[in-house]
């Protein structure tokens, strides 16, 4: 059952979106988010939406998997919608009861808020769906590189992310093994009250933690044996290089941002 957990949700592919440099994609995501939050009206929202729709179409990611990823967020979306409907002051009152009034402005505002969250999440999904975790870490490390001057441990963070991702499947396998071992000795994880079930997890977590520490210790020794001394003087096998496609991507990003700002200055 634990094996079903998918990681990073990466869909391998060869579309132009997949082939973009991870740094380009990260920057475009930031541009997209700025554009999304600057958009204030139907037209500018439409422009941002068109950008998103075209990106999804080009990436060839099935719409179904994006919608599937939204499932856990339905509650937050509904909650945001209701909150905005009830608590926005406006003049065009549609319904009024118990001292609460629903206004046209409230409904429009709620609609935009929900749309904004939906588009924000879809954009982020598009990044993780089209970028392998390892190139995402590489991209982050490279983009955050200048922060090293401020003594921020950028390389160490990227290394930690990489190792964490490497060990998640190993630890899941191990959890499976420990659970089977405990079940074979009569442990019961599926029945009883919530408290009982939480208590039943202790005999899984304790061995899992002990083994994780042992693994960490051995891995550290193995890394030392392979001459690891932190990020200084380290080279990379795969160098990130901006290609023509990336400059096209940046071009699209600039156009998007400009369009939203220009439309904004016209009050659209």
């Amino acid at each position: 059952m634990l094996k079903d957990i998918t990681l990073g949700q990466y869909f391998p592919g060869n579309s132009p979106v997949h082939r973009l440099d991870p740094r380009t994609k990260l920057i475009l995501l930031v541009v997209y988010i700025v554009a999304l939050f600057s958009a204030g009206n139907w037209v500018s929202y439409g422009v941002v939406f068109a950008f998103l729709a075209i990106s999804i179409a080009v990436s060839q990611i099935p719409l179904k998997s994006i919608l599937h990823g939204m499932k856990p967020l339905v509650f937050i979306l509904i909650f945001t919608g209701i909150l905005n409907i009830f608590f926005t002051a406006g003049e065009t009152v549609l319904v009024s009861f118990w001292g609460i009034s629903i206004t046209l402005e409230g409904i429009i505002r709620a609609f935009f808020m929900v749309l904004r969250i939906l588009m924000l999440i879809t954009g982020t999904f598009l990044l993780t769906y089209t970028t392998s975790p390892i190139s995402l870490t590489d991209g982050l490390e490279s983009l955050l590189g200048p922060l090293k001057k401020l003594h921020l441990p950028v390389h160490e963070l990227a290394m930690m992310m990489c190792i964490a991702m490497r060990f998640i499947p190993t630890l899941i396998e191990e959890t499976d093994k420990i659970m089977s071992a405990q079940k074979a000795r009569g442990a019961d994880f599926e029945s009883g009250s919530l408290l009982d079930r939480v208590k039943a997890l202790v005999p899984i977590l304790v061995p899992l933690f002990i083994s994780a520490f042992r693994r960490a210790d051995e891995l550290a020794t193995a890394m030392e044996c392979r001459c690891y001394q932190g990020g200084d003087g380290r080279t990379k096998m795969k160098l990130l290089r901006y290609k023509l496609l990336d400059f096209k991507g940046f071009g699209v990003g600039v156009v998007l941002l400009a369009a939203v700002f220009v439309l904004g200055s016209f009050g659209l």
Partner: protein
Amino acid sequence: MPTAVSVEHLSYSYPGVDNTPGVAVFEDLSLTVEQGSFVAVLGGNGCGKSTLAKHFNAILLPCGGKVYVCGMDTSDEEKIIPIRRSMGMVFQNPDNQIVANVVEEDVAFGPENLGVASPMIRQRVDRALQQVGMFEYRSHAPHLLSGGQKQRVAIAGIIAMEPKCIVLDEPTAMLDPKGRREVMETVLKLNREKGITVILITHHMDEAAQADRVVVLSKGQVVSDGTPREVFSHVELLHSIRLAAPETVELCKALNDEGFRLPLDRLDTEECAQALYDAIKA
């Protein structure tokens, strides 16, 4: 022949907890390993095999005496990186030595740490993966490989650093027979074809029998040292430190106890059968 490793009067004890005296592992151990040789180190549990291995690349430093790797003193801090670069180390659990979640990225980890130029890393990684026969798995995730394959990836990660010498600390202990065979074939090939010095720490007699030289440790002392034939023919000595000789030798020994007079240096099944045939005919 030049020496790859030379251990001179090594003494080491693990630090004790709360000022209690530590446990002494070695009191006065001397050993040299020639470049290009294949040495198996045998010994029962707790005889100091792994502790010795950790001295070979400065993970542990001697309390007394010296350890030299390719002429470099392991207690010289400035030499640590050159030492680790010429002395690769493969551990028992393949899972706990793989760093990245793509095979080729993991193999590249060592050369990346050494600051090798990017196009050179690519070459080294491809060559190392070809040498261990894992080239077609270069873009796989390590957790989907078998134990033997993971261990071969770990070996590739070491040879991509182009070391002169490799220490393998019970590399087959967690593998199934197929994985063990794959790893042993790889190690033998590296020794024969690339001239890499191999120090294999093991408790499988049949693996040790494939080495040029066998060193038997017991309680921190070298109790036997020679070619596999010499070492394994001292069956009683091996038994006294709770080790078994290879099965062919054990068979001959058991028959000798019943009155036969068989040679005790037949390590190969074929040779052993021939010796039995000769004995029965006579």
